């Protein structure tokens, strides 16, 4: 059987980030290939290169044996490649039929033949077994149905290769099951399917073959039969360079952060944290290991005042705190290194010095009553730039002039220089260069050594293992196991991350 899609040694670099490095991949007709990897591993870049939305730097893309030119979306579509984006490309106020024919309407004397279009829609949905009402308005449809329209839109153009970018990220578990069924049926009809995901369950349930990316490189290629969820998890999160962290033994004293029976909903109003309890002692680092999407984000946001809790209590230094705003949690004694530094951590066009006082700009000595003390802001900026090794010619340069690592060091400097009793660090080294990673790790350890309770959430298992005093494994919104890191075993943690023990959703 000839290959439907062949990618050979594809490379793409964005500035200083190597998004794809010599990646090769094939998809055969009727085959379902899962593209697995953490956020930022290069999955989206790869499929965007295939469909022509991204121009690769080097490498060859072949469709049915013929080479595809770089960055030519129209040509890719003409050769039978269809893509279902993570964010739907639909017009919400128009009907299913109108969206399907958009851009390619059946016309007669310049008038759209709506009846013909509707018949076509009905036929299409019957042929592929995707039941849908041709007259329904998109914005009235549940997400799963809207996605169906996206898939039909691609199928209408006779695709032979369907690419789906995290198709299940927005779906409920039931909708996910339906989608998997739909994709299986499509494959039986000979359509090749390449889908991006970081959810292991889907890969095991659906894929014929799995290609794992890590840090822009091919980490492995296998089949669900030959491997297990825990092996896949390790392929995904393992890092080639194991960073060695110098750290003395911890000296834990009493509980500084206590979470009891916490329940939190995610953006889709589904339960993401399901009755979770944990305790972080002063003077220790508790690492949360887990595959992304198991409630990490919601846990951190609920502790740090960015998301309301549905149930449960949070105690900081022994005092119970209600649902608060972020700065109130900060005032209660929690430093937070947020997951999304560009969105929440920094004002890019402000100077580094202003960013370093962003949550204290109206307090002494940075302001006296109504008047800001710019000298104090500037000298604080210079001092922290020096102390936290932020590589910049001046603290008055805009934060946008910094590299990712130095931006993160700016956030770390602001949060850790205040010596608060609790530190919550969420993905503190994501997208950060190796030198900055080492520095940030040292800062987290020195926060621990001065007696702070550090809660570390990271998608990098190596980071968790090398920094933490204790490791808790999060799966399906619950902590399924806690280890002393001295006795932690990678294989066992990998299995737990994949949900092989305890409850599963």
């Amino acid at each position, binding site marked *: 059987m000839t290959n439907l899609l062949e990618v050979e040694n594809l490379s793409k670099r964005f500035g200083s980030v190597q998004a794809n490095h010599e990646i090769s991949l094939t998809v055969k007709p009727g085959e379902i290939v899962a593209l697995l990897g953490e956020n930022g591993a290069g999955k989206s870049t790869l499929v965007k290169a295939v469909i022509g939305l991204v121009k690769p730097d080097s490498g060859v893309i072949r469709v049915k044996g013929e080479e595809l030119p770089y960055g030519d979306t129209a040509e890719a579509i003409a050769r039978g490649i269809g893509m279902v984006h993570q964010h739907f490309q639909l017009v919400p106020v128009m009907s299913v039929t109108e969206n399907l024919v958009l851009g390619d309407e059946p016309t007669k004397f310049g008038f759209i033949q709506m009846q013909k279009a509707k018949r076509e829609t009905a036929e299409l949905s019957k042929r592929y077994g995707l039941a849908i009402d041709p007259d329904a308005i998109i914005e009235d449809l549940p997400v799963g149905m809207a996605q169906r329209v996206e898939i039909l839109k691609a199928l209408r153009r006779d695709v032979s290769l369907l690419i789906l970018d995290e198709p299940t990220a927005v779906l409920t578990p039931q909708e996910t099951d339906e989608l998997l069924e739909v994709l299986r049926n499509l494959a039986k009809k000979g359509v090749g399917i390449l889908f991006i995901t970081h959810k292991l369950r889907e890969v095991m349930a659906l894929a014929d073959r799995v290609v794992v990316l890590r840090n822009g490189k091919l980490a492995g290629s296998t089949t669900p039969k030959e491997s297990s969820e825990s092996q896949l998890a390790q392929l995904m999160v393992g890092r080639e360079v194991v960073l060695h962290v110098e750290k003395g033994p911890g000296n834990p004293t009493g509980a500084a952060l206590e979470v009891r029976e916490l329940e939190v909903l995610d953006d889709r109003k589904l339960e993401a944290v399901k009755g979770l309890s944990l305790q972080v002692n002063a003077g220790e680092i508790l690492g949360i290991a887990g595959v992304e999407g198991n409630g990490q984000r919601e846990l951190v946001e609920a502790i740090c005042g960015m998301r309301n809790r549905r149930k449960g209590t949070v105690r900081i230094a022994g005092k119970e705190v209600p649902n608060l705003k972020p700065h109130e949690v900060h005032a209660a004694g929690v430093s937070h290194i947020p997951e999304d530094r560009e969105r929440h951590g920094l*004002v890019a066009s*402000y100077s580094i010095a202003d960013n370093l006082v962003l949550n204290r700009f109206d307090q002494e000595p940075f302001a006296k009553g*109504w008047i800001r003390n710019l000298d104090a802001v500037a000298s604080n900026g210079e001092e922290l730039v020096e102390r936290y090794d932020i590589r910049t010619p001046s603290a008055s340069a805009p934060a946008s002039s910094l590299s990712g690592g130095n931006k993160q060091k700016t956030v770390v400097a602001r949060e850790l220089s205040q010596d608060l009793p609790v530190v919550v660090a969420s993905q503190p080294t994501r997208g950060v260069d190796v030198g900055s990673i080492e520095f940030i790790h040292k800062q987290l350890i020195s926060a621990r050594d001065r007696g702070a309770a550090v809660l570390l959430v990271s998608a990098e298992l190596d980071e968790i293992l090398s920094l933490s005093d204790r490791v808790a494994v999060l799966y399906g919104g619950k902590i399924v196991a806690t280890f002393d890191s001295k006795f932690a075993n990678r294989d066992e943690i990998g299995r737990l991350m994949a949900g092989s023990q305890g409850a599963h959703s």
Partner: protein
Amino acid sequence: MAILQRVKLQTLSIPLLSLLIAFIFGSLLIAMQGSNPLFAYQVLFTKAFGSIEGIATTLAKATPLILSGLAVAICLRAGLFNIGAQGQLISGALASAWAGYSFVGLPFLIHIPLALLFGAFFGSFVALVAGLLKAYRGVHEVITTIMLNSIVIALADYLASTPFKEPDQPITRTPKIEESARIPDLFGLPFGFFIAIAISVVFWWLMRRTTTGFRIETIGRNRNAGWYAGISVKRVIISSMLLGGATAGIAGAVETLSITGRFEPAFNAGLGFDGITVALLARANPLGVIPAAILIGGMRGAASTMQFRAGVAPEIVDLLLALILFFVTAPILLRLLKRKEEGISLSSGWSN
């Protein structure tokens, strides 16, 4: 330091380049009317800036534009696009006229500030409606301020034609304000000009040195980070709309109290809209508003002379202003300069 210098250079280079390109396009349009563009420009600028009287006229014209420019600029700083300066200005102009003729027998030291206060209050009241709708219901301020413009203009027409109308006159206008409410001239220049300069400096200081200014600026640049740092987004939206509305109201009041002497609907046409051009040309800098307003005020003031002496239709000035506005906002120039925009974004998106 090189980075800083580059950013500063850009804040100057974009407006200047916009002006240059607008005048080049304008010269083509003048040439199409059969006149000599260089001569037309020479007449325009000699009239506006070539003599003491010319400069006095220019500054008088610039005064309300400085204030309406500030009204737009302060909101831009908070990430809000206040298209409603016109309505706020009219509201302030009418309120100050009413205060100017209704209170009789006050000393001018009380009467003038009182009338200005009326202008500020009613200007900010109009803006408050848009601010509340934005803060609590998420209604986009561009939509509400445009609608409020229509409401205020119609309401002011009604008030000036019926309850506040000057008795026994066929024209729609209010009575003349009392002499005690009239803003005098100072050294042959309208005193209102100095008020406008003072308010610009106060705004500059506010943005630079106070926590209030920092809050406004932070929300304007990154609303999420501002919220995360503990700044109330609602309060910033409402307070910057109030400040903007009050400034536009003072613009209308100064115009009433020093130039027109009463409220007459047609007199204030366009002052608020020119404020948008002024604010964007100044890149929302409170001090930059001053030269931008002087330039535009000068062109407005000299338009009719250009018609007499160079035979160019005075609408060419409208066209020039529109071209300036276009080039200063269009990203074309930025792309030409090949630099990513730093600093303020000039308006918020349509969907937030």
